[in-house]
């Protein structure tokens, strides 16, 4: 199925979770902010969330800024 991650379409396995996707992307949830369909996903609830076709994910980190 297809979802949108950071603005790019991406095909993933049906039933994949956010945590699994992060693993596939080689990302450590710590120090990341994740927005799932416009809602912030906090660390406690992240485990329970499955991805559905058409979902939108934003994976944000902090970088140098003034």
């Amino acid at each position: 199925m297809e979802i949108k991650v950071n603005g790019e379409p991406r095909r993933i396995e049906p039933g994949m979770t956010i945590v699994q996707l992060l693993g596939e992307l080689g990302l450590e949830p710590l120090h990341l902010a994740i927005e799932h369909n416009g809602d912030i996903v906090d660390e406690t609830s992240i485990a329970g969330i499955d991805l559905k076709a058409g979902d939108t994910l934003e994976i944000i980190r902090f970088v140098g800024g003034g």
Partner: protein
Amino acid sequence: MRQQKKLVIDSIEFTSRLFIGTGKFASAQAMADAVLASGSELVTVALRRVDLKNPHDPMLEALDFSKYRLLPNTSGARDAEEAVRLAKLARAATKTNWVKLEVTPDPYYLLPDPVETLRAAEELVKLGFVVLPYINADPVLAKRLEDAGCATVMPLAAPIGSNRGLKTRDQVAIIIENAGVPVVVDAGLGMPSHAAEAIELGADAVLVNTAIAIAEDPVAMAEAFKLAVIAAEKAREAGPGGESRLARASSPLTGFLRENE
């Protein structure tokens, strides 16, 4: 000038009155070295999408987060809603509820929007954020943000990155005179003398980024700002003697010269 011995924001006490922005450095290492040299205890950061093709994050490795409090900003927000959304993402990514509120619709001078800034500040305070708003040098707006529960006000000296110095001196002086929260002069401080002038005027702290980041030697420039800020703090606490229009002789009049004439 308010005699404030210690700088306290949201019950956190800071020894250094110099805050550092981490943008525009040639490398993460250069940034980390400069921040260390600055003696700062608070560093600002911005938000960006993870690059999925290159998820490596040099900044995380370079900076020792046990040493510094993070102050994520809402850079890029053009209205209150965008600022609030960025603040929430910032909190999730940095695990702090402090936020440097920036709402800058104008892309040329990056000047803040007073109305959207106040709207966002009121919302963020409700949401439990500790809000440090970046503002024009507007004394009434500063007071309203204080009344809305902001932890500081951060009036600009000159446009972001312009290095022009304290061009808003008169207005900042009024903000300092009226403020019940710490006043952090932000943006446009280009040389140590500019930062010292702001602190001598009574500002509680200054935030510097571009002047350090784009210097040929950022570490040396960071040390320079560190020393200038300490110097200015010492000076205002030392009880300056004030200006005079006429000269005041610093040597005794050498009377004998003409007595025998």
